[in-house]
């Protein structure tokens, strides 16, 4: 009797299994879909940026993130599509991201600016470093508690993060080198490192990266195309410039002078603005430390000196000279040719990566005022 019951039970299970198999569509690995397409047919939508590639195939976007300065190393690959497509046709995987999620956290100020430009701030529920936010819209949302602070400096408020429970966290690997507590929370982490791009247009192109998670590609494309058109337009102005004024950058700080490398973002801007950067032949792609005397012996008679700083009161040559008497020895100081940008007042670090055309125009106006006589500087101006 018992054996008979077991027999019927097993029969029922096997029938049920057979039936359910018949109903389930044939799911496949998403990677294999892209792998089956010849490379020649898969063309990245990214033109300048070196840190990521973006492919589109039948409403699915493949986002590939590379290790900065070493494109052979892929850091992460994400597949973004709507939830129906993903759940019906593809086997579950960690790197499948459902498009257009309503509850995300953004920990990079530059990326937050991209959200604002794409009119996507309503999707943002958490940010980091709330006290440095300059954007009025975000400040207002913070006051109304529509957005909350989930991290400060390099520290995550884990309990708050779990309470807000964002479906995605966009973070800056530079600040969060060790985000493992969030791994435990099971929230997908999307690294954002536009700051590694050395070409101004490459850095601005990261707006496409942000947009793809929300199906805002078209808007991002049109915004970027405008930036590109403007930037190239300004750059063309200096193409035939014969006289390129010499320039050096930054300040001495506690025994070191961090000079932007010859392959850096700033060096590219100087070149495009028609200036002769004194360290243009250097091989570094980021800033590197030099002794004061090395900088002085090379830059003592440079035509211009570019500084991004922040003084509470109005910046002046007196303030600069009293900060360090060594500065007064430079010809650019004596001739009052310091190109100054107040990082705080202009929100330089948040906004300028997506406005490289305006930064370039400011620099051209400083180096070659005759080329843009009616220009009104936004970021840089010659210190009076």
């Amino acid at each position: 009797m018992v054996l008979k019951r077991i027999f019927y039970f097993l029969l029922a299970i096997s029938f049920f299994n057979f039936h359910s198999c018949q109903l389930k569509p044939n799911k496949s690995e998403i990677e294999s879909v892209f792998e089956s397409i010849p490379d020649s047919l898969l063309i990245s939508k990214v033109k300048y940026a070196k840190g990521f590639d973006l492919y589109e195939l039948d409403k699915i976007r493949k986002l590939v993130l590379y290790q900065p300065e070493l494109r052979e190393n892929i850091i992460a690959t994400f597949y973004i599509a709507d939830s129906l497509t993903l759940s019906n046709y593809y086997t579950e995987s960690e790197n499948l991201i459902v498009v257009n999620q309503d509850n995300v956290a953004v920990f990079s100020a530059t990326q937050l600016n991209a959200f604002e430009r794409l009119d996507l701030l309503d999707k943002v529920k958490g940010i980091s470093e709330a006290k440095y936010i300059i954007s009025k819209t975000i400040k207002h949302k913070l006051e109304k508690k529509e957005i909350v602070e989930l991290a400060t400096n390099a520290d995550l408020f884990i309990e708050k993060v779990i309470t807000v429970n964002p479906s995605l966290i966009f973070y800056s690997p530079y600040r969060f080198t060790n985000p493992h507590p969030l791994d435990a929370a099971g929230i997908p982490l999307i690294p954002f490192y536009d700051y590694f791009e050395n070409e101004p247009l490459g850095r601005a192109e990261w707006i496409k990266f942000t947009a793809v998670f929300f199906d805002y590609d078209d808007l991002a494309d049109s915004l970027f195309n405008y930036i590109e058109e403007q930037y190239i337009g300004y750059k063309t102005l200096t193409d035939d410039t014969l006289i390129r004024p010499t320039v050096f950058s930054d300040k001495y700080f506690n025994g070191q002078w961090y000079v932007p490398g010859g392959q850096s973002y700033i060096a590219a801007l100087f070149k495009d603005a028609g200036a002769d950067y004194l360290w243009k032949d250097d091989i570094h792609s980021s800033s590197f430390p030099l002794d004061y005397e090395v900088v002085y012996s090379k830059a003592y008679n440079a035509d211009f000196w570019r500084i991004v700083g922040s003084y509470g009161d109005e910046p002046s040559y007196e303030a600069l000279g009293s900060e360090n008497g060594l500065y007064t020895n430079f010809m650019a100081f004596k001739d009052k040719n310091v190109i100054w940008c107040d990082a705080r007042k202009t929100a330089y670090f948040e906004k300028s990566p997506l406005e490289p055309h305006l930064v370039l125009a400011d620099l051209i106006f400083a180096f070659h005022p005759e080329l843009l006589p009616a220009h009104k500087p936004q970021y840089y101006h010659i210190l009076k």
Partner: protein
Amino acid sequence: MGIKGKTAPWFIIFLALVIILFLANLWYGSVLIPWKDVLWVLTGSDDINEINKVIILDYRLPQAITAIAVGMALSIAGLILQTVFRNPLAGPSVLGISSGASLGVALVVFAGSLFQLELLNSAYIFREISVVAAALIGSFLVLLIIIFISTRISNVVTILIIGIMIGYTVSAIVGVIQFFSRAEELHAYILWGLGSFSKTSISQSVFLLCASLLVTMVVFFYIKGLNALLLGDYYAKSVGVDVKQIQIILIIIAGLLIAIGTVFTGPIAFVGLAIPHLARYFFKTSNHGILIPAVILFGISLTLICNLIAKLPGYDTSLPINAVTSMVGAPIIIWVIVKRGKVKRA
């Protein structure tokens, strides 16, 4: 009691070494400058390349003078503390006095995060004065606590331990403040903590040297007292030394010297701890009549040598001075401890 007989030639040799090292500091750096240019600058000749003149006079000279002032101040402070506390491991950082100065500086640097005061972005002069004042106040506050305790407790070892504990507490407070601070402030504070001789202008360095010389001169009046302290409280009392009073005066002097040696440059490690040992070992004496001038010359030589090493031969950049003094100073301490161990066993 002082320098005479066999020791005198050594002092002449070390004085000559200090002069050579000082000139080497003016000559040697990332940019190659001919010897004759250095000498011309010193003689005030106009027949010199303007760039070299700026590098020597405005950059290397203040650094060398600062190195001299700090080397002298911290070494003498270390000697005083080791004698007063009769402990070979007493030094500026051990009693928490450097930590006190660090706390003062931390309060100024992190004022933006703590009190919504944007001192880092305020006028440079104001910021500079606040840092100097805060470092002095910080080190003196710790010093006052030490003095207050030393009037209650006579055991110098207990005071030393309390000093170490105060140091830990103050460092913990600085740690908590750092936790709540923002990245740029943290960066500024960490850089201050790395120490540098190159932050001072020529006028600041001359001020440091004068202050350091003035306070060090006062120490010469206490040679007898320092020697008496070494032999114990009873002996000191028997030769007419008011132990409590002299201890307090010497601790105040040491505190002043530490504040001088920390405020512009950041805390410079191991100089105060290592130099007195080197001087004692070299002259094989504990007579302060010899030790004080020896410590001055050794301290100056060490900081000038460290500054030369920090300039990294063949490189366009330089190392933080604290890293160099630690690398040079720590092995000296280990060597002294090993030597003492061997002597005791023998």
